[in-house]
């Protein structure tokens, strides 16, 4: 089902956590709310899920504005950050919990719960208590529990943040696969731009309770709407040009040394980080970056190996003219 936010606002006393945001998420999309902590992304998610009252504005799910309806009436289900599995119930009963609340009979709800556990490959551990499971296993159970009632919209609050990096990448793939298979709308809160890029059809970058930019990941990366987005999404240099015009240039489009072009500016190399397939070179150039932040140039490893730079060396730095993206804000 489509999810639409209309002038959605949340105030706590005098502070505004979410400031009149408008957003439309199409049915079946994987949407990531991306932003630094305190940007209002979790509050937005909780308002969509009915766990937070709306100060003003509306949440529209499918054909109707949901108002103050309970989560189960909205067709949403939430997967909590800490999974929030019931510690006294085994996996199967955790998954069957919402069915039990609806008065579904024991055999039926157990069968349904087992089917859901099968979907996340957890049937073999169905009798275990949550405390006896690893983080990744708990997450699968939490996912099964959220999906068991057949929600149309699944809300995920930083679902991968508690996992180790290796598992995070694996679960990410599985989340995406499940979402495509089930055809559900997923709304996923994260502060990792990498996660958002990898997963989403729609990336919503938030800052200070407002939406900075919403679009598909490629658009957001190629044409960041603001300096904030360019910085937060990573891989960009925000460069101040004469006349206080600002442009974002992708770090891998920076040119160093004799390839820097005619308008090159001298810059001092302050760091060189070898990353395997590429080398990140930190640069300090007077007047180019705002308040002395370093610029980054990403060079392919063979290019760097053929023409290495040393720390402290001063090199001309430039960029492809077509790679410079004008920033409006």
């Amino acid at each position, binding site marked *: 089902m489509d999810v639409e936010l209309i002038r959605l606002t949340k105030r706590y006393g005098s502070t505004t956590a979410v400031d009149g945001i408008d957003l439309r998420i199409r049915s079946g999309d994987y949407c990531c709310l991306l932003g630094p902590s305190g940007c209002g992304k979790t509050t937005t998610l909780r308002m969509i899920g009915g766990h937070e009252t709306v100060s003003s504005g509306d949440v529209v799910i499918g054909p109707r504005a949901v108002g103050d309806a309970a989560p189960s009436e909205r067709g949403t289900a*939430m997967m909590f950050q*800490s999974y929030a599995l*019931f510690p006294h119930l085994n996996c199967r009963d955790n998954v069957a919990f919402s069915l039990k*609340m609806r008065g579904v009979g024991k055999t039926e709800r157990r069968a349904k719960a087992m089917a859901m556990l099968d979907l996340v490959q957890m049937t073999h551990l169905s009798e275990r208590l949550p405390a006896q499971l690893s983080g990744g296993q708990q997450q699968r159970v939490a996912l099964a529990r959220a999906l068991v*009632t057949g929600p149309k919209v699944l809300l995920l609050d930083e679902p991968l943040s508690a996992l180790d990096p290796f598992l995070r990448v694996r679960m990410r793939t599985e989340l995406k696969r499940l979402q495509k298979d089930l055809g559900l709308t997923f709304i996923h809160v994260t502060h990792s731009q990498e996660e958002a890029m990898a997963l989403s059809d729609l990336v919503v970058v938030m800052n200070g309770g407002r939406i900075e930019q919403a679009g598909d990941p490629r658009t957001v990366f190629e044409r960041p709407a603001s300096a904030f987005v360019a910085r937060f999404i990573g891989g960009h240099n925000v460069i101040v040009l004469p006349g206080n015009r600002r442009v974002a240039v992708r770090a891998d489009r920076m040119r160093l040394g004799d390839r820097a072009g005619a308008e090159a500016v001298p810059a001092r190399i302050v760091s060189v980080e070898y990353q395997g397939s590429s080398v990140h070179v930190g640069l300090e150039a007077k007047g180019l970056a705002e308040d002395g932040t370093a610029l980054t140039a990403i060079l392919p490893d063979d290019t760097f190996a053929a023409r290495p730079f040393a720390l402290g060396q001063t090199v001309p730095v430039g960029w492809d003219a077509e790679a410079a993206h004008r920033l409006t804000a």
Partner: protein
Amino acid sequence: MTDIALPAPAEAPAATAQSLTRTARRTRRLAYLQAAPLALVFLVFFLVPLALTVMVSFWEYNEYEIIPAFTVQNYVDVFEGCLSTSDPCTTLRTYLSTLKFCFLTWAFTLLIGFTVAYFLAFHVRSARTQMALFLICTIPFWTSNVIRMISWIPLLGRNGLVNDTLRSVGIIDAPIEGLLYSDFSVVLAFVHLNTVFMIVPIFNSMARIDRSLLEAAYDAGATGWQTLWNVVVPLTKPGIAIGSIFVITLVMGDFVTVGIMGGQQIASVGKVIQVQMSSLQFPAAAANAVVLLGAVMVMILAMTRLIDLRREL
């Protein structure tokens, strides 16, 4: 030179091994020393008196003296006539009466304690208010048990505050008998005195419940009552068990409350022991005490069988 130098390598490891065992022995001695104070307190104030009680319960006695000899007569006396089914013996009737108080007190303290703890844990948002209200719960402990009991008397008496008020309002014509010196007043005093022992452990259990679990239950479509019954109560079980053990042991061994609030007319196991003590029948009292101890232990064992406390804590 060589014959002096030679033994050195062989000796060195022996010396380290020796010093190793020495440090190990020292740490072990230290551990015993650290455990000693508590063990000593236990020994002097718990094990020795208990052993003495058990010992005295097998002694003989008459009107004038206690005789250190071995007899089971005291226990036979406790259960005298208990084998006849038609007429329950005194001991059995006393136990039934005490158990009745125990059950009623347990039920009411649990109900009130759970409600108060629930309010404190889930409805009071700020930690400071929570702490303040929690301390208020303990204020009654600033005065003694007996005084708190006695303060009921002017309220509940035949011409007490309750009867007077009801009469002046016109709800009743004649004073209600049995407000005071009755089962009612005994249970009332028990509940008043012991509810806090229920509140504290239950509150403690509830405070540990992750709030996101309640949200997860709400998300799953559970109503308030369903969340209470399916999430809060199961996770509060350890607190309920500990509170229940407090209340049950306190009520089972009580004689003061039953005495004062029952007008010295109501029997209880503790009261029996107290009467025997005051008439210097120490062996009989000791035998009764041992039987009571056994009964309470059986009750607690049954309870811990229901809830694995050690796992829950």
